[in-house]
């Protein structure tokens, strides 16, 4: 399986390459990609220099143009596609049928991957994108159980990429408007979830409160560790009980599933985290490279090393990891 790693900056891209990523995915500095955070992503010069390094090292560069275009900004998405084609990237990752159509007609030799934001969770949906736009790979949303990934992979007309590690979206990607309901900005249209500009921290006698556009997402006691107020990971009241009603702050980690994913014919595993630091990219890439290499060398005796696990736990939200939807009991 190919290892696909995130880079929100040139140092992160270099770290991924150094630690053995087979491919690195990046975005332009605007709302055409799903990690449109201030200060993040690569400008033209950085992209050129990143691509040069990728070519020297024989790796691949993917560009995500994976938000949904708004009619008045259409030219921006068109330009992003044209720019990716001009750079000669190894793949363009997209979700919007309009963007995919434009890319496939205007740049027929451009390699297209269906983004996780396309929210294709079954073989029929994948067939649509393959037949109409000639996609050559699809990234599956993090809502499928392992058995369902197997079913989809068996029937899929294109190779499959799955998420292996990183922040866990508990809703089907591309099918979540919770952020825009509270803040007006959503992953689909703006490339952000729970945007930083809507976050307010408030300290008082009882502890620390995190708010999103005024709405209380969580409240922490004095000694409790506090996390970023991603709205689906707060503590809320349901039937009078206060708990993480949607999901705990936790990260996806699937090192244990390497043998099963390989057996299913999954062609690539993806690390989440273009918004994370170069140090995060460096460490996660190093661990996953080691794990994939160990498995390739001796599949029968593969076991997850404790030091891999502890290294990844320390980089995870709430310092805990889960198999997420891959494991039925999570659902």
């Amino acid at each position, binding site marked *: 399986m190919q290892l696909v790693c995130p880079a929100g900056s040139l140092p992160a891209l270099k770290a991924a390459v150094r630690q053995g990523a087979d491919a690195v995915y990046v975005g332009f500095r605007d709302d055409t990609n799903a990690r449109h955070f201030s200060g993040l992503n690569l400008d033209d010069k950085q992209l050129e220099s990143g691509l040069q390094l990728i070519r020297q090292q024989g790796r691949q560069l993917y560009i995500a143009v994976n938000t949904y275009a708004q009619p008045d900004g259409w030219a921006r998405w068109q330009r992003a596609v044209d720019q990716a084609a001009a750079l000669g990237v190894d793949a363009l990752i997209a979700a919007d049928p309009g963007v995919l159509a434009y890319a496939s007609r205007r740049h027929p030799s451009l390699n297209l991957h269906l983004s996780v934001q396309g929210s294709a969770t079954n073989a029929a949906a994948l067939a649509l994108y393959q037949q109409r736009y000639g996609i050559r790979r699809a990234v599956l949303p993090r809502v499928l159980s392992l058995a369902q990934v197997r079913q989809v992979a068996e029937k899929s007309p294109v190779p499959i990429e799955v998420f292996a590690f990183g922040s866990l979206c508990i809703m089907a990607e591309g099918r979540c408007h919770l952020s825009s309901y509270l803040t007006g900005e959503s992953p689909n249209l703006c490339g952000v979830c729970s945007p930083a500009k809507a976050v307010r921290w408030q300290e008082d006698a009882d502890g620390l409160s995190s708010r999103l556009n005024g709405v*209380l997402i969580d409240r922490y006691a004095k000694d409790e560790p506090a996390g970023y107020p991603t709205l689906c990971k707060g503590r809320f009241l349901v039937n009078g009980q206060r708990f993480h009603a949607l999901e705990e702050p936790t990260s996806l980690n699937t090192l244990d599933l390497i043998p099963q994913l390989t057996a299913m014919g999954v062609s690539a595993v993806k690390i989440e985290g273009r918004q994370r630091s170069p140090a995060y990219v460096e460490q996660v890439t190093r661990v996953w490279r080691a794990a994939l290499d160990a498995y390739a060398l001796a599949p029968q005796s593969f076991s997850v090393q404790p030091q891999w696990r502890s290294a990844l736990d320390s980089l995870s939200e709430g310092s805990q990891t889960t198999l997420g939807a891959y494991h039925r009991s999570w659902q």
Partner: protein
Amino acid sequence: MKLSLGPVLFYWNREKLLDFYAEMAEQPLDVIYLGETVCSKRRALGLDDWLGLARELGECSRAELVLSGLALVEAASELSSLKRLCDNGELLVEANDMGAVQLLRERKLPFVAGPALNLYNGHALAELIDCGLQRWVPPVECSGELIRNTLEQLDSLGLARPEVELFAYGHLPLAYSARCFTARAENRPKDDCQICCENFPEGIVLHSQEGEALFTLNGIQTMSAKVNNLLADYAQLATAGADLLRLSPRAEGMAGVVAAFDAVRCGALPPLAVEGCNGYWHGRPGMLRADEVML
């Protein structure tokens, strides 16, 4: 302006569903959507039951009947059910997943694109029109301006506009997950959920720790706690291109909701303000109400 009744998003038992549709058959509705869109484990009515209900409604109501498909299609069994639904041979289908679009396209059948499909611009709309889309229900987070611009973009591509149906009333369907939040709130594993959502005819309200109602848990679907209501905005809806207004079923009082919208489309003055929210329509956070934030 036509009025439509969206599919029931909550899980009601067979008796409640049949009583509900018997009452709705007498209302001034132009379109009625039937079928289960949220969870394949909800089987109070199976496909044959829905088709039977459609035939009965067809005899006593003038409404066009449409069959809505599941929004999140994961298991192979769900894909098979979706194929049977597309092969029903009688009713127009509302596609809520691109898998459904593919199945309908293969069968060369026209379809309604439901609000769970991500169509946000004229180029994307054009793609689906080429697949057979004849009516578009925009994603619920779209503003009136985005919808108008999308249709104008479609005009500039030289394509005829499809019918446009706005999600005008009801709890907004906001997100879909693999996880069942109702089962989680009831401390049950999803595989042994005992269809506990049946006990909550309008879902479970999720509040912030300050008691502010934020979301409604409805199985694997998360909805707004507030009811989206565009009646006060009625004058702008047609201008933006709307041909139909979708009223999404609630557990109680739907006949009154239909009557209120019907009165306005027949010439009564729309109310100055309504309970609930309409922020999305005004390009603001969905939870807001325009008159409260002085838009």
